[in-house]
């Protein structure tokens, strides 16, 4: 079914958006096969975008410096998340842990992932695990020892274009705060996990 090349959004001038909906978004690697099945109910062909509610009011990037919004910004920039330790997990106690997670970018390969264990004050390089491919999830690893005191851990990815994942606050500064802007739909800010003294891990948004 894909009209565009696999894993890529068709450019508007090439007849956006079929490639996204039917090839990229519809395949869920590693899960039960039927999760990847999408029932094609109907094909509609148009000579221009429909400017639906999602296209106009959600997947657009308002820039508060000018009041103008970028439209058709479907490319997800560099993004990452620590999958261990992560939300709702419990660390049994102080000791050795390998912090690990996934990074990806819609604009190419991941070239660097940094880890902070002090809420973004300082950063250290994580190791990337092969294979490192364009527009693909890339596993990163960061062996470390937790001393049992509260900590906020974060990951920050950089892709081959040189773009580094911004903080939430940097995105808010450019596009407006979460409550007022459509940013909620297109969000690649740095994700933070807070580890409490009892080892519980929670999602937090440090400023």
């Amino acid at each position, binding site marked *: 079914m894909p009209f565009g090349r696999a894993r890529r959004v068709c450019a508007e001038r090439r007849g956006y958006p079929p490639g996204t909906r039917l090839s990229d978004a519809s395949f869920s690697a590693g899960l039960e096969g039927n999760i990847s099945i999408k029932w094609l109910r109907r094909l509609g062909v148009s000579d221009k975008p429909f400017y639906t509610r999602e296209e106009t009011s959600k997947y657009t990037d308002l820039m508060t410096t000018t009041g103008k*919004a970028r439209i058709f910004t479907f490319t997800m920039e560099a993004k990452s998340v620590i999958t261990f330790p992560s939300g709702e997990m419990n660390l049994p106690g102080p000791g050795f842990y390998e912090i690990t997670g996934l990074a990806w970018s819609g604009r190419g390969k991941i070239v660097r992932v940094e880890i902070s264990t002090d809420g973004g004050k300082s950063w250290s390089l994580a190791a990337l695990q092969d294979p490192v491919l364009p527009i693909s999830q890339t596993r990163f690893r960061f062996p470390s*020892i*937790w001393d049992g005191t509260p900590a906020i851990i974060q990951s920050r990815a950089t892709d081959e274009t040189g773009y580094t994942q911004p903080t939430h606050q940097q995105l808010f500064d450019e596009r407006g705060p979460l409550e007022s802007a459509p940013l909620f739909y297109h969000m690649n800010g740095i994700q933070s996990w807070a580890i409490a003294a009892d080892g519980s891990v929670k999602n937090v948004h440090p400023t």
Partner: protein
Amino acid sequence: MFLRSGRHDAVKRVTCPGPPPSVASPHCHITIAVAIIAGGFAFALPTALADSQGYTSKYDFGTTATEQEIAAVAMAIPADGKGLPPGKGDYATGNTVYETTCAACHGRDLTGVAGLPDMLSGAALRLIGGRGTLASANPLVTVESYWPYATTLFDYIRRAMPFSAPGSLSNDEVYAVTTYILAEGNIVDKTTVIDAETLPKVQMPNRDGFIPDPRPELFK
């Protein structure tokens, strides 16, 4: 606090080996064989064979969609309003529709109800206000201040609203509540009657507020 465990350069890159050729090769053959079988069945099964094996038709499943069934789902309205259905709506009717089906979430004053699950601030439910705030530190993004096309309002209400019973409004009711929201947002006059002819002509305040993504397109 986390401490580094050893020097970073002691962390080896882990190489993921591919399957050995003796494993990969039969798998590929199986895949190809399945593809050939499926392709042959789907595209080349002769009618005589279908009959002889008891199939009532080539594929033996599904029914041809009726014109009505197609019309019921072929309802997307582009910005130029092509495909807008017959019907019309005015402010007073829209006010009634709004109060009975919309106000519980969007608020009597169309500014959103706070405290609903997953929408604690209520800002995403706000429909009007915010003109002139887009170039500020606290932009208020609403239908009135942000949406470039009025047709999008009709399209979205008809396909997705009210949240608890999408598709339950008649076309006249959708036109009416669209008129009500646009009038409350001071985009059209309260005497305006909106239909397929007039809706695409409504000039939204932020019509020219969108620009193409200036970043270069990659992977040409």
